[in-house]
């Protein structure tokens, strides 16, 4: 039982009642949602831009990204600033709760039944303190290429 456990720390956040995890080494900071400046004609998933550490970065609304209904931001809303693939992007979540250590061995691959977009950005599923946690593949989450197709298609029928 004393054999070393390979574990990484994750930041847990919540979205529409489900817990998600992103590797904490990719998280630059977690902050309250304050001033978001909307960017005209940007894709809907882009809520706007914010300042962080003197840089102007996009804030992505994860609810829009994952196909949930938008809700207004409140005191619990959090902006999770992540550094992925050379980019710095803010992710808007309902709330971000804690840092947790998840042993690699306890992350199960996503069930094959999940396909399409959800399958693509899901790295695995873990159980933390009896709760189900979806571990995200951040590179896929912030790659909005697939979303582009989704949003521009209906407009072309205009």
């Amino acid at each position: 039982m004393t054999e070393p456990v390979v574990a990484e720390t994750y930041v847990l956040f919540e979205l529409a009642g489900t817990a998600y995890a992103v590797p904490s080494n990719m998280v630059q900071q977690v902050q309250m949602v304050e001033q978001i400046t909307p960017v005209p004609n940007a894709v809907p998933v882009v809520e706007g831009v914010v300042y962080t550490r003197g840089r102007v970065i996009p804030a992505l609304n994860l609810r829009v990204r994952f196909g949930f209904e938008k809700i207004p931001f409140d005191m619990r809303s959090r902006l999770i600033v992540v550094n992925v693939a050379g980019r710095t992007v803010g992710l808007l979540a309902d709330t971000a709760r804690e840092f947790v250590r998840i042993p690699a061995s306890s992350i199960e691959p996503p069930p094959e039944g999940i396909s399409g977009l959800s399958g693509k950005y899901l790295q695995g599923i873990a159980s933390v303190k009896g709760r189900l946690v979806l571990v995200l593949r951040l590179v896929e989450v912030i790659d909005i290429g697939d979303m582009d197709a989704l949003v521009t298609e209906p407009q072309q029928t205009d």
Partner: protein
Amino acid sequence: MSNQNSDNTEDFREQFLEDYYAECEEHLVLVRRHVLAIEAQIGAGSIDVGLLDELFRSFHTIKGISGMVGFTEVEQLAHSIESMLRSLRQAELTFNVELLDGLLAGVALMERVLGARQTGQSIPSIDATIRQLHDLSTSAPPQSGMAAPLHVGSRPTTSVRRWTVTFTPTTGLSERGINVNSIRDRLKDMGEILKATPLVKGQGEISFQFVVESIVNLVAIEDWQELGVVVLPADEGATDVVRPALPASPSNLVRVDLARLDELMRMIGEMVTSRARLEEQIKHAKRSLPSSEWRSLRETTQVMSRQLRDLREGVMRVRMVQIGEVFERMQFVVRDLARESGKRIILNVSGRETEIDKFLVERMMDPLLHLVRNAVSHGLERPDERVAQGKPAEGRLTLRAMTIGESVVIEIADDGRGIDIETVLDRAAERQLLEADAEIDNARLLDLICQPGLSTRLEADRESGRGVGMDVVKKTVETLSGTLSLTTERNQGTTFRIDLPLTLAIAEALIVSAGGETYAVPQTVVREVLEVEPSSVRALERNEIISYRDGVLPLLRLSRVFNLSGPAALPDRPFHVFVTGAGSSAVGIAVERVLGHREIVVRGIGDQLVQVPGIAGATDLGDERVVLILDVPALRKTTLQKSAGGMPAAGATP
């Protein structure tokens, strides 16, 4: 009338005071530089007389100009220091560490008085320091070996020496019967006049210079100044006074208001736009011109384009100053802190000549001071602690500056105890900023120590000084589009690194509102702002036009282009239109209101997700909220494409 008059006087005095503070600051910069050089020479046993002369001159000027503005405290301090320096120059005193401390105390107090004057705070008392300086000037030089008395130069005081005596007559003096003849007579009594030459200075001012050989120490005679006479030693100095290669004295510098440079930049920006227009017109002229003429025209505009770029760079260069001035100030801080805390510190400075935008330097001063204070107060250990750890008793503090590509890097490094990560983590856990046994790296650690109020031992600093904490340091760096990073290792030390852009893109901008949002519009592209009555807008197919000068102007409603659903302006309320482009390519961009006009710092928008047509960048107006900068040429193009063929624009018909 009299009221207005006194307003003018007040204005004049304000203006004058501004110059006064700037001039004092310039002299204090020189003073710091010279004092540091002297301090270095105290160890070497002999002090360069030239440095004393320079110091004397600076304090003499400060005394003079302080008298003019009626700041008696500064005047008195300068006078006391001047007296002390005079005694030193006359070798009546020897320069030792106590005198140096007295001098530094005087300078520090002078800075505080000036600061208090400038900010309208209560003036600190100068009595104690004046007494200290007076005691130092009059006491016999300590001959005990402990203070290692130093001799100024190597100057025999009993032999015959040469002096240069310069007399400048004024009407005031001649009323008191003092003229060139009376001075000559006095000098004759004291020694032999070898040479007398009249000197004509600018503006018709005449003075007389005598070279006098005398066994009397002429400088020691106190009333010279009242007689309009300046005496300087002219002898042996020529061979054994080594003048250090000092940077130019203030007289070679021109003070320029940054706003004027920005104005120049704006004009250059306008020229760039005009040149682009010219190129466009030349393109159109291709058909109607012989090809050789057309080619030479085009070549000329290309040369002009290059010249404009050089001009722009030239103006940018004027904004750059060497960081050495900042580092010198730090040396003083370190010196004071070392003395107060009983720590021994060797300060290494490199990259003084690194150039950085003046705007940045001024804003970085307090953060740098804070980091240096921190390094000394919290980073470096006391000598006994260091020795116990097998480290040299002297702590090492390094200030480094360098230019890397388009950024300036400033590092503040100490070889002290390193940041106490456990304590920081405990505090963070207490405040529930992270879980108790979380992993932590340098970036996260930096975030934590920059949380307001989290710093472990910074409270004392807040009291002692300028009220800047790590949170402010970080925020300042970030506001200037820079980054702050940290490396720290237990008992090895801590290094803070600041990366700043070489220069900031600063632009004049109109601030406008449209659809409930605020935008910035670079002023260089705005030709005119109009107030338009809704009733004067004419619809033409899908376009809107207004009459403008002798033609019509296509209108682009920003809220429509940007699909802004915010509260629309009342339909019958007049709105603002800014005109951009000239002739047939002019377009009016309609907003709700032009709110004002200000200088903004332009930041790029890096991420592909937010690079949208019509937006050129971002800025903030000081409230942390991002304000987008309009890409006006792009907006204009969309309008023109949309309306192409639809209708004749203003001035399109010849």
